[in-house]
């Protein structure tokens, strides 16, 4: 874990180093990096191009705030623009008619059926509504059974009808709801490709018959370049009212959210964050922006760090770091400071370069173990780790309830970290690194 962390941090240090004055050149390089990052996030190429043109013209006019590097400022501007674009206007559901009708549409496998059930559960729990689910996907084998099972598990009735005629099912369902007093009807339709003329006509007709209050298109967050074409076509034919982005519990960057919003102007209303039926969230533009950009918000990191860290202690620590007198006491102190800021992963997410790295997993449990081990050291051992011999290790292991090899590993990590810090110090003296990144004035 620590080897990884060191790697990530040194990467972040590189990005954080000061660059002095803003030049067209260093913005151009940052711009290239942002572009690459957006493309890796599967934001549609044409959207990236247009969006970045706009942002760049804005960024070039702006002055760099003191104590922030041009890179940081640029990333911040991009981030703000992304939030702006993703946010804005209405995000809630507009359910005026009684019964209100919600139509779920989208490509195959995007998660319509699951979202339909999640939405029913959400409306029931959060808004006290009395929903009816309608199984109107008559094509995919067992799609109806799937919705029936899901409905049962959240105690929401599912209208099935004659299983063959999707128009009849939709129409009868609305009458059924009126009769039974269901005040919101969620219609699950079949997945379809936007180029499948026959199927697109089918969903148009269903929309015509039911006059939905909301037509929500479900988008898989893993979607690639082409899905924005599907979104545009669904919107052209159905005039959708918003999107639900699914499978965000994975590690996809979700660029499709940006592309879809950019091209159609329609809001993202919900996100799916797990397989359980209560794992539906309202949409937060800021979270999505940072996920898509994948570069973190340097400025907010600095702000957050400044807010939370004890300035004096950090200055002292920095001095010690520079002299490479880093002891386990400092280690412990650092852990405490980090914990104050929230989970380590949430802090790491804010460091540019980190979220981009693949496979990063911060085991928060391990941090607790590390703390336990350090707590089991004597004062002397913490200040002077060199004296920790085998018998001391054994005692520490017993005291912390961890294994001997874990203790040894931690001490090894500590030595590596010390070495690394020494190298940083040297580089800095030679002026290769610029300012130490976490410096507080």
């Amino acid at each position, binding site marked *: 874990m620590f080897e990884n962390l060191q790697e990530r941090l040194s990467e972040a240090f590189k990005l954080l180093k000061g660059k002095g004055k803003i030049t067209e050149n260093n913005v151009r390089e940052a711009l290239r990096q942002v572009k690459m990052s957006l*493309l890796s996030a599967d934001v549609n190429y044409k959207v990236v191009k247009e969006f970045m043109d706009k942002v760049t013209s804005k960024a070039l006019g702006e002055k760099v705030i003191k104590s922030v590097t041009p890179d940081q400022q640029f990333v911040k501007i991009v981030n703000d623009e992304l939030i702006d674009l993703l946010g804005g206007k209405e995000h809630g559901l507009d359910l005026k008619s009684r019964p209100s009708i919600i139509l779920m549409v989208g490509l195959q496998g995007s*998660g319509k059926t699951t979202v339909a059930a999640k939405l029913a559960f959400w409306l029931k729990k959060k808004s006290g509504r009395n929903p009816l689910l309608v199984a109107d996907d008559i094509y995919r084998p067992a799609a109806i059974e799937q919705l029936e099972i899901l409905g049962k598990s959240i105690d929401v009735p599912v209208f099935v009808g004659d299983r063959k005629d999707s128009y009849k099912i939709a129409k009868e369902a609305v009458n059924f709801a009126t009769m039974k007093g269901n005040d919101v009807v969620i219609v699950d339709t079949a997945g379809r490709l936007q180029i499948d003329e026959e199927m697109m006509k089918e969903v148009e007709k269903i929309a015509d018959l039911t006059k939905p209050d909301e037509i929500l298109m479900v988008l898989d967050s*893993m979607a690639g370049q082409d899905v924005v074409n599907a979104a545009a076509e669904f919107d052209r034919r159905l005039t959708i009212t918003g999107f639900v982005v699914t499978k965000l519990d994975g590690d996809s960057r979700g660029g499709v959210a940006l592309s879809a919003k950019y091209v159609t102007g329609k809001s993202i209303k919900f996100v799916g964050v797990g397989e359980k039926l209560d794992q539906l969230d309202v949409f937060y533009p800021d979270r999505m922006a940072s996920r898509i950009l994948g570069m973190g918000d340097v400025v907010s990191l600095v702000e957050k760090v400044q807010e939370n860290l004890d300035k004096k202690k950090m200055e002292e620590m920095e001095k010690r770091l520079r002299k490479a007198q880093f002891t386990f006491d400092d280690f412990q102190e650092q852990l405490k400071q980090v914990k104050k800021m929230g989970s380590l992963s949430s802090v790491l997410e804010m460091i540019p370069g980190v979220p981009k790295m693949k496979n990063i997993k911060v085991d928060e449990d391990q941090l607790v173990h590390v703390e336990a081990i350090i707590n089991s050291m004597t004062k002397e051992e913490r200040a002077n780790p060199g004296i920790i011999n085998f018998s001391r290790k054994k005692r520490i292991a017993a005291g912390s309830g961890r294994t001997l090899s874990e203790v040894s590993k931690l001490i090894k990590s500590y030595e590596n970290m010390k070495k690394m810090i020494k190298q940083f110090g040297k580089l800095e003296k030679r002026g290769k690194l610029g300012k130490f990144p976490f410096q507080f004035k």
Partner: protein
Amino acid sequence: MAMLNFLKRGLKKTKDGFFGRAISMIKGGITAEKLEDIQELLLLSDVGPETSEYIIEKMRKEKGDPVEVLRNTLIDLLGIDERLKFSQIPPTVYTLVGVNGSGKTTTAGKLAWRFKRDGKRVILAAADTFRAAAIEQLKEWGKRAGVPVIAHQMGADVGAVAYDAVKHAISNGIDLVIIDTAGRLHTKDNLMRELEKIHKVISKLSSNQPTETLLVLDATIGQNAIQQARIFDKSVGLTGIVLTKLDGTAKGGMILSIKKELGIPVKLIGIGESVEDLRDFDTFKFVDALLE
């Protein structure tokens, strides 16, 4: 390599026929602007920033007809077509793995239909006991293909389903067992371990099994596919990819990066919703479509 050269020769013949857009772009020599257009085309096909840059770099550096360079680069990246393997000692076992909604159950059904048609004795195993009605869905496919389905109830232990299916195949002279597993995001460690367990159970019954572990990938997804392939490969060792939903307008260009980085070939493509809409992957045709 001989095979590859054959393919390249084959491509030469179609020089003016296929590859409409890309080829007309670079005819008459390349310029920086034209290269940018090619890169745009590649990026819009989900080839991804790194691999498309690699391709453009090749075009910039290598001498000769730029059309040839582009084609050959793509063909070299994809390599020789590879087919599904059969176990010398029956039964042959295929497991289908992938994230949610990629098309595993549909692919299982189509595969069963195909090999049943070819005269093999096939069974399907419903090892997705998690998703509501996944078992019913597979049973419906079993009906269409005329193939029995080994299934337990929802929520059952998937290792036990796999065990029963392979055991049944061994004692009844079944040629092919196709195991449909639950969709799982590769980021969920516990679910990945469940998959590993299925494989352990199978290999205990019959060594060198499963014969094929196929990752089912939706062609409409983007760069996350590479990470999926990486993690699934690490966990259960992939032997190939089934690229589904290629009947839409998505090109599936991310398979270039997967082959380049991980060496995993695409073996099958899904091009529609009916039973016969599953084809062997053809590098030649894929490259055509990519550059169309």
